[in-house]
């Protein structure tokens, strides 16, 4: 099947408006006879469910958590971008569009990104109307912050809990529709397959995670809004339950999977402390404004620090290597996420990591304490302040800016970051890849849509900070509700979809057989045993930097691990009860397939772009080298084993932006 991205004709600034003017609509009386399933209730799924229900469709929404409010969008900290230009600093739809395409290293689709920038301003209006308590200035108007990779202040925020407040806004809109009976909510339910009837997505098979019951649910369209697949690495900043299963199931039924190798590894996370670690915690990117990143220059000092015989504060300036400032004098500690992460890995691989695992670098605020302290001493007219006084004054300023982050760090690491530098290391945070969708957000299965982080969408090979929330809500509130109507207009005479068809029968049988297999296998290793092994392969060979040899080995190792899993996995308990191990087994089984496709995608992409760094493709001084022939989206078609997947290319054309090199020197 040839890929058709269905981008409307005409100038980029008119595409979305023209499109909306010419699509088919469904009249309100007919919407009452049309059902839509939404899988996932984060920013994308929650906002889509609420809007579709308001329009009059009958929505069935599914969440694996005990309430829609707990989806992992809730953990987003920093903010949400919107081209409001409230600050009058020259922001515009075009500038947001431009920053996003460039930030994505010229690997995203122009028309989608422009539409995203276009609807961004509406998101803020909508959320304020819903009662989202965004930060305000003393005049009562909305406040903004600046984020990495841009030259304007366009980020709206609610303390360090922007994701929480936006999700609670979408949740409140859902609650209104649940109360009206327009959304039927299925909490503690997990989608285990999509049902395709006569070539169209017509329902799902779901498992009730409390009773274990397998249920059939039919609809005229199915929307996948199940988030990203960062947990393929076992350790990430994702929630424990975050998984690829919904996306992977539609992939196996005909939806192409795009750019699986594009992963964002965030530079400032709290390092691992041991093998028992279940999860990694992000420290906001904003810390890099005032912290300087370094490792010792000499390996002797590294050894002494690891053994505890030397403290980092004892090292003099000339015994420290501020490697980001050394390599990137122009941007210094504020290089983009992908660059900062790779540089930390380079130092640690060379043996300079400063903790027991050898995977940590310092983020040091001492220079900021001094700088702010001296400034404060001037302001407060303190003549000849002592060093201790300067430090004290400086710490007060840093505390006011980042106090909550310093406290969080201290709770987890049990070290006082005011007295000793923080230790940080990169961690998996977001996946730009996902289910391939056209301009309508429809996958290659008619009637099956993918929105939010679950699709491959708008971020190309690297996502800018504060853009994930924007995309989730744009898709759910303002894009999908239009595009899905164009498709459903043909379904007004279809009537209720039966769940008694042979297709539902077959899908349910497949799901049940797999569950029975897990329960009856009685193998020797737990599900986590396999998940951790997979995570290690992914991190070592498909992580921050990749090479052909490593990727080929990864493919073999994952394939062997998958075989072992299907022979020796041990799942306790029964299928007819609350059984978290069983749920996890299904998710890990899918990660074991995705992981291999991921490595294959990374192997085929013989260039470096954004979060995808191939060691063979770098400049003389170790920077990423993009290659013109790879200016396409890799969309994979399922053909059984991941090794048999077939590559389809969607060529990317840049008509409104000049493709340039990214340099931060």
């Amino acid at each position, binding site marked *: 099947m040839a890929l058709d991205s269905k981008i409307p004709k005409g100038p980029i600034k008119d595409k979305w408006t023209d499109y909306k003017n010419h699509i088919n609509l469904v009249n309100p009386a007919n919407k009452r006879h049309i059902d839509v399933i939404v899988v996932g209730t984060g920013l994308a799924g929650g906002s889509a469910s609420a809007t579709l229900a308001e329009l009059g469709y009958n929505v069935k929404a599914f969440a694996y958590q005990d309430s829609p409010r707990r989806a992992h969008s809730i953990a987003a900290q920093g903010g949400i971008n919107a081209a409001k230009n409230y600050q009058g600093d020259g922001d515009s739809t075009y500038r947001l569009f431009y920053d996003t395409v460039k930030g994505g290293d010229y690997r995203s689709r122009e028309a989608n990104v422009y539409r995203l920038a276009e609807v961004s301003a509406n998101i803020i209006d909508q959320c304020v109307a819903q009662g989202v308590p965004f930060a305000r200035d003393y005049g009562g108007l909305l406040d903004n912050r600046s984020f990495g990779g841009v030259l304007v202040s366009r980020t709206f925020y609610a303390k360090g809990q922007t994701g929480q407040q936006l999700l609670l806004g979408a949740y409140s809109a859902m*609650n209104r529709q649940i109360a009206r009976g327009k959304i039927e909510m299925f909490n503690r339910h997990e989608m285990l397959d999509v049902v395709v009837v006569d070539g169209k997505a017509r329902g799902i098979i779901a498992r009730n995670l409390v009773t274990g019951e397998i249920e059939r649910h039919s609809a005229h369209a199915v929307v996948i809004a199940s988030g990203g697949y960062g947990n393929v690495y076992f350790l990430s900043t994702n929630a*424990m339950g975050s998984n690829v299963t919904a996306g992977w199931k539609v992939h196996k039924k005909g939806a192409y999977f795009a750019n699986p190798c594009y992963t964002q590894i965030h530079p400032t996370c709290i390092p691992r402390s041991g093998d028992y670690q279940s999860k990694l*915690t992000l420290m906001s990117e904003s810390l890099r404004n005032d912290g300087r990143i370094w490792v010792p220059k000499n390996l002797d000092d590294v050894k002494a620090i690891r053994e505890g015989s030397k403290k980092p504060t004892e090292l003099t300036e000339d015994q420290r290597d501020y490697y980001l400032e050394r390599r990137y004098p122009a941007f210094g500690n504020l290089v983009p996420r992908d660059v900062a992460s790779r540089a930390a890995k380079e130092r640690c691989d060379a043996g300079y990591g400063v903790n027991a695992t050898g995977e940590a670098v310092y983020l040091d605020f001492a220079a900021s304490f001094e700088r702010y302290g001296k400034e404060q001493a001037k302001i407060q007219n303190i003549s000849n302040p002592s060093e201790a006084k300067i430090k004290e004054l400086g710490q007060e300023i840093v505390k006011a800016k980042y106090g909550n982050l310093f406290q969080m760090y201290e709770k987890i690491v049990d070290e006082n970051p005011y007295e000793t530098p923080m230790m940080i290391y990169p961690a998996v945070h977001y996946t730009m890849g996902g289910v391939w969708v056209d301009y309508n957000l429809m996958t290659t299965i008619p009637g099956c849509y993918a929105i939010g982080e679950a699709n491959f969408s708008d971020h190309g090979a690297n996502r800018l900070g504060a853009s994930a929330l924007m995309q989730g809500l744009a898709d759910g509130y303002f894009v999908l509700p239009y595009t899905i109507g164009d498709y459903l207009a043909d379904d007004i005479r279809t009537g209720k979809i039966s769940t008694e068809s042979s297709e539902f029968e077959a899908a349910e049988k497949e799901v049940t057989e797999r569950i029975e297999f897990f329960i009856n296998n009685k193998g020797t290793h737990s599900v986590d045993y396999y998940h951790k092994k997979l995570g290690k392969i992914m991190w070592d060979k498909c992580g921050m930097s990749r090479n052909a040899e490593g990727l080929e080995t990864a493919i073999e190792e994952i394939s062997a691990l998958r075989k072992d899993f299907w022979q020796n996995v041990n799942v306790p308990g029964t299928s007819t009860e609350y059984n978290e191990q069983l749920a996890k087994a299904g998710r890990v089984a899918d990660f074991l397939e995705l992981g291999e496709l991921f490595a294959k995608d990374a192997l085929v992409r013989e260039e470096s772009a954004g979060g995808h760094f191939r060691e063979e493709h770098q400049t003389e001084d170790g920077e990423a080298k993009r290659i013109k022939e790879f200016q396409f989206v890799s969309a994979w078609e399922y053909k059984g084993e991941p090794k048999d997947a077939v590559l389809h290319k969607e060529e990317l054309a840049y008509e409104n932006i000049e493709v340039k090199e990214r340099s931060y020197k």
Partner: protein
Amino acid sequence: MNLTLKIWRQVDAKDKGKMVDYKVTEISESMSFLEMMDVLNEQLVNAGEQPVAFDHDCREGICGMCSMYINGEAHGPDRGVTTCQLHMRMFKDGDTITIEPWRAGAFPVIKDLVVDRSAFDRIQHAGGYISVNTSGNTQDANAIPISKQAADTAMDAATCIGCGACVATCKNSSAMLFVGAKVSQYALLPQGQVEAADRVRNMVAQMDLEGFGNCTNTGACEVECPKGISLDTIARMNRELMKASI
């Protein structure tokens, strides 16, 4: 460190349930409490036994999913944290730790430490929203200025994660801190005024219907709340309810 765990085991809602003792060894001080539970569960799975069921998801203190009553305190002995943020350095080698589910009539046990908090969702369905369509055709976000103080106080109330620690802690199993937080968020903002009276009446009525107890001003909820929601929210809810009934 080595620990003895006394954990509530209950097969399902109908089961009577009982405390069972377990031993875990070589627990690191830098583990989170839930990672210690992971170690126990891996041990149980490898021994062919049923792991202990407990709710958890984000493991960074914001989703509100985790919910353990540890040594008689919701989310354990530390303050201002959820169970997933509680670290083992709060305990000593040789300690015996008692772990129970949230105990409240309105939160029936599903299995072991997992409880059903859907009553919270139903209270929100009754009025936890502003009736505005998501058409995007609302007025400009800056059309209504909101004082910084009102916005900040609304945010302090909105920071509730819906974990249920307040209910579990309260001797009356009251949900007033939870409901007060939501009512306060909207009561403090101009957008919420239009339907303020209906909102508070409906949410309080649903709260009573779900079987939560009343508030007797003990203030334990405020102490145990991982997000520091203030008792002021309960006072504000009572004022709103009073206003709505005259």
